[in-house]
């Protein structure tokens, strides 16, 4: 199974760029994941203020809002996609992350088999 680990750094956009020291520590962790054969991919993201949001109303009409945004509570700073044998194993890896003042959320990735038969057929027909 695959799990996505989202990093929520809980920092302001001004402090977004991590120090060399933090990066070195995180790289060690990433390397450990890689050498354990668990790591599928990972990325760090630019702050949300540099991005944009596309929202859809109930009619499906879209509106684009460019950053920066007023409310920014929980913003994703980056992610890891890992292969693990159980949720507990993914959680154990997440708890080894060298984080300070942040949250790592662990979410299982949908596999085709997790869907009902009609959804699977809809995917197959695509």
């Amino acid at each position, binding site marked *: 199974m695959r799990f996505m680990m989202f990093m929520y750094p809980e920092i302001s956009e001004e402090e977004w760029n991590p120090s060399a020291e933090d990066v070195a520590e995180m790289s060690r962790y990433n390397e450990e994941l890689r050498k354990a*054969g668990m790591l599928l991919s990972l990325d760090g993201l630019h702050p949300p203020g540099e991005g944009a949001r596309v929202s859809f109303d109930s009619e499906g009409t879209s509106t684009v809002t460019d950053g920066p945004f007023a409310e920014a509570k929980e913003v994703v700073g980056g992610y890891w996609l890992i292969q693990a044998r*159980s949720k507990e194993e993914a959680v154990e890896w997440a708890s080894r992350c060298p984080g300070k003042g942040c949250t790592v959320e662990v979410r299982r990735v949908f596999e085709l088999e997790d869907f009902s038969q009609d959804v699977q057929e809809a995917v197959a027909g695509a």
Partner: protein
Amino acid sequence: MSGAATNRAIEAVWRIESARLVAGLARMVRDVGLAEDLAQDALVAALERWPRSGVPDNPGAWLMATAKNRAIDLARRQTTFERKQEELARDVGMRMAMDRSEFDAAVDDEVGDDLLGLIFTCCHPVLPREARVALTLRLLGGLSTPEIARAFLVKESTIAQRLVRAKRTLRDANVPFEVPGGEELAARLPSVLEVIYLVFNEGYAASAGEDWIRPALCEEALRLGRILAALAPDEPEAHGLIALLEIQASRGRARLGPGGEPVLLLEQNRGRWDLLLIGRGLRALERAEALRGPLGPYGLQAAIAACHARAREAEETDWVRIAALYDALAQIAPSPIVELNRAVAVGFAFGPESGLELLDTIAAEPTLREYHLLPSVRGDLLAKLGRGEEAAAEFERAAALTENERERELLLGRAATASAERA
């Protein structure tokens, strides 16, 4: 945490730590069987202690320290270990005194070597192939004996016996616990690669709805292959194997139809191929190609798989390159199956006559006499040349040879189509 939740957490820690634990202990005691026993003792201690105390901050270090203490206890009772004892005690004392980051830093360099040593020991050529597979899954995958038995559809007692015998063989043969150096490493690598490839194929052959442990073998093989490539980055074939596995696994979702019937590569819905795994496979192949020397058998198979992976539609397939790669593969790893595939590729690349010509050179091959794919490929090429009657006869011959009911229907259908086209 509830008791059940703690047990699941311990199991997760075990899955992550057991291989490193056994590897580190095996380096100390020079016996993988004993190392496994010591590691198991540490696990039992954790199962007793952690539900009350909670999982420690650095569970790997805790397990290692506990196992080493057991080793020292054992050494005290065994005079043969006398001289080792002092050394062990010093080692453990030192490690226990260190905090987490120092511990990690101290063991980091050794851990890689230990793991690689364990991989090479589990896959040692003194062991028969199936023993190598069982021992690798047990000690590197952390799979239990019942899980291995279920995965390979054999009795639990068979696996248990296989494991006991394997560990005894390693002990009796005095197999040193080490990473072979230089030329010996290259010579012993194929037996490691073979084990990982076998585990993958066993999982890949499992059909949907089977016991989850069988398809999980694919993930385990991918994990082992990635570890090997990370620990032996200078070995082109380690990258070649993982490239092949990643690309094959990328087609997992597309290779079966809604009724569970196999879908041939060229007929698969490529939109269902896993782009992430394809990307990983292509990058691994690049690493293999960047290293010295020509590609080995796994690297070449990966390069062939990559040709298919790069084609967005079946019609875009670079058959000329595939034919050339099969040509290279036939030279370093000749087999009738490779020749058969080469004929298919040549047929696509240079026209059906060329394919047929090549096929004629291997038609007399005794190992292919009962192989249904030979007449099936011949039928294919003949049909393309408009020789419908001959094609139909080949398809019928193939249908009579296959043991797969669904395939037989498919072949008989093609025979009917071929003879209809003639009329």
